[in-house]
């Protein structure tokens, strides 16, 4: 565990980067520090590996004040990933990854074998090993940066906006990869970002920081999105935080009507090809062209994806797909809404109206309130 014990940093010119912070970073979990630039989050991160020395208070690593440890030795035991990857331009990918094992005096052959394993672990092709950093895309460089940080199998990983410099699609891929890695490796991760969306996606616990490292809120992502501590945090979270909260919840809770039970909704009918993949929606009443069928994968997607597919569909019905893209069944907007209201505090019914009235329009089954879990 990393413990910040009244840790503060005052620059020689008197400006205060971090006032005084108390924070526990639990072992084996991802803790995200999020806040606007200048809130001291990077300073805090660097206190852990002594790239910044606190001017007050202490930082404890498993109970030991890091100030008492030799800086170079301490750092070899802590993985570090930064925004621009910071790969060594003169070393091939394999030797970049093996940097810390070499520094620890490991045998070259053994270190390279380990580096090759890590290359695979972060999803890079074996032939990447012989390349130089400049021959890689930004996303690939970042993967190498993560592999290099993991090479000596450190229990602690510090990540300073590691995915901020890559485009959104690559970033989402890298985030998913990090979550997959973390489910296997269970590192103690301290992750810094200015992107609240990233914080909410990755964090087991999210620390929203104001300027000078003051904690505005410390919560799990679900609590953060549904119950921000104050208006400042709410503003930082953005206006659609309710919708974004859906991205934290699995789509598997949505009730799906199996394909065998029929594919017709009113005049709309879903057509499938021979292999069971959806082709599109046909309006039997209008004899119009086929409209595309939006789908989601219940096994891996979130409620947000399911809702999105239902909103996009002309029939108001999302298609549930298996890993190969074959239709498992269909889910109406009402089914998706039922799944997303499950697990939330019940909304008081407005006077004079029932909230279930519209569900009768569609042949959807009711949402299963017990199936929803909510949050990660």
């Amino acid at each position, binding site marked *: 565990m990393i413990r910040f014990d009244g840790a503060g940093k005052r620059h020689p010119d008197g400006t205060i980067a971090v006032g005084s912070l108390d924070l526990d970073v639990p072992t084996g979990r991802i803790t995200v520090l999020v806040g606007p630039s200048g809130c001291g989050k990077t300073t805090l991160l660097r206190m852990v*590996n002594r*790239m910044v020395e606190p001017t007050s208070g202490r930082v404890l690593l498993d109970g030991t004040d890091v100030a008492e440890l030799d800086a*170079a*030795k*301490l*750092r*070899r035991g*802590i993985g*570090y990933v*930064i*925004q*621009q*990857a*910071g*790969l*060594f*331009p*003169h070393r091939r990918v394999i030797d970049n990854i093996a*940097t*810390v094992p070499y*520094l620890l005096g490991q045998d070259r052959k053994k270190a390279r074998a380990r580096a090759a394993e890590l290359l695979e672990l972060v999803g890079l092709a074996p032939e990447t090993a012989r390349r*130089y*950093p*400049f*021959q890689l895309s930004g996303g690939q460089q970042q993967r190498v*940066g993560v592999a*290099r940080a993991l090479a000596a199998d450190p229990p602690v990983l*510090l990540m300073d906006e590691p995915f901020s410099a890559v485009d959104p699609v690559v970033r989402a891929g890298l985030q998913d990869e990090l979550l997959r890695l973390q489910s296997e490796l269970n590192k103690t991760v301290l992750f810094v970002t200015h992107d609240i969306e990233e914080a909410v996606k990755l964090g087991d616990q999210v620390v929203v920081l104001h300027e000078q490292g003051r904690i505005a809120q410390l919560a799990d992502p679900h609590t953060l999105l549904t119950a921000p501590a104050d208006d400042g945090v709410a503003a930082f979270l953005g206006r659609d935080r309710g919708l974004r909260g859906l991205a934290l919840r699995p789509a598997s809770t949505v009730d799906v009507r199996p394909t065998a039970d029929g594919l017709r909704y009113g005049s709309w009918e879903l057509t499938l090809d021979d292999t069971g993949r959806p082709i599109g929606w046909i309006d039997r009443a209008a004899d119009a062209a086929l409209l595309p069928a939006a789908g989601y994968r219940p096994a891996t997607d979130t409620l947000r994806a399911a809702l999105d597919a239902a909103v996009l569909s002309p029939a108001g019905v999302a298609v549930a797909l298996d890993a190969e893209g074959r239709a498992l069944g269909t889910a109406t907007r009402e089914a998706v809404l039922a799944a997303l209201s499950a697990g939330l505090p019940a909304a008081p019914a407005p006077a004079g109206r029932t909230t279930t009235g519209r569900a009768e329009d569609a042949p959807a089954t009711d949402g299963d309130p017990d199936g929803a879990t909510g949050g990660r």
Partner: protein
Amino acid sequence: MDDEPLVRWYWIGDHLGYLGGLLADHAVIALVPVLIGLLLALPLGLACARFPRLYQPLAAVFNIVYALPSLAVFVVLIPYTGLATRATVMIPLTFYALAVLLPTTVDGLRAVPEPVRQAATAMGYGPWHRLAAVELPASVPYLVAGVRVAAVSSISLASVGALVGRGGLGYLFIDGFQRTFPTPIVAGIVLIAVLALATDVVLVTARRLLAPWAVREKAVTR
């Protein structure tokens, strides 16, 4: 001089051995100082990168040295190192090489991107170790560029040494001028150009071997 052709080929044919000897002497006088200058510039440059306060005074000293006319320095040295000795010419040339190579070494080390430096520190390199294992190899393209400038300027400057009796191919210019006989002058110019070109080819090859990543990087960004 009006009737004198630019090149009398028979003279060159008659003096091949002599020209070869001057060429070899010129190469030693001009290039050994560059090598020594590099060997001095590396530790000095590393020290300046580690302790930045050193750099300004050192750079000032070498700039002043570089500004001194080479002929004046040769003449001043004669009482100590002797007339027509290699040392008289090579000592100033070493300082000129150093004056070029110290700034390129320091600039090269400083040009290493900050994220690379930070990553190296965070991986657990101490300051000296980081300079030697990360920043120095990463600045090889800069170093080679500096050595190329220093080598060419040294090859050119070495001919001035002929005025104090030891200038390799430079002697051909004095000889040709005194006899109003252009052939040795032309031969000297051509041989100096050939020496400069050959040196450059060797240095570019050295860069390809030492920093293959930098060569390919250039090709890609073009």
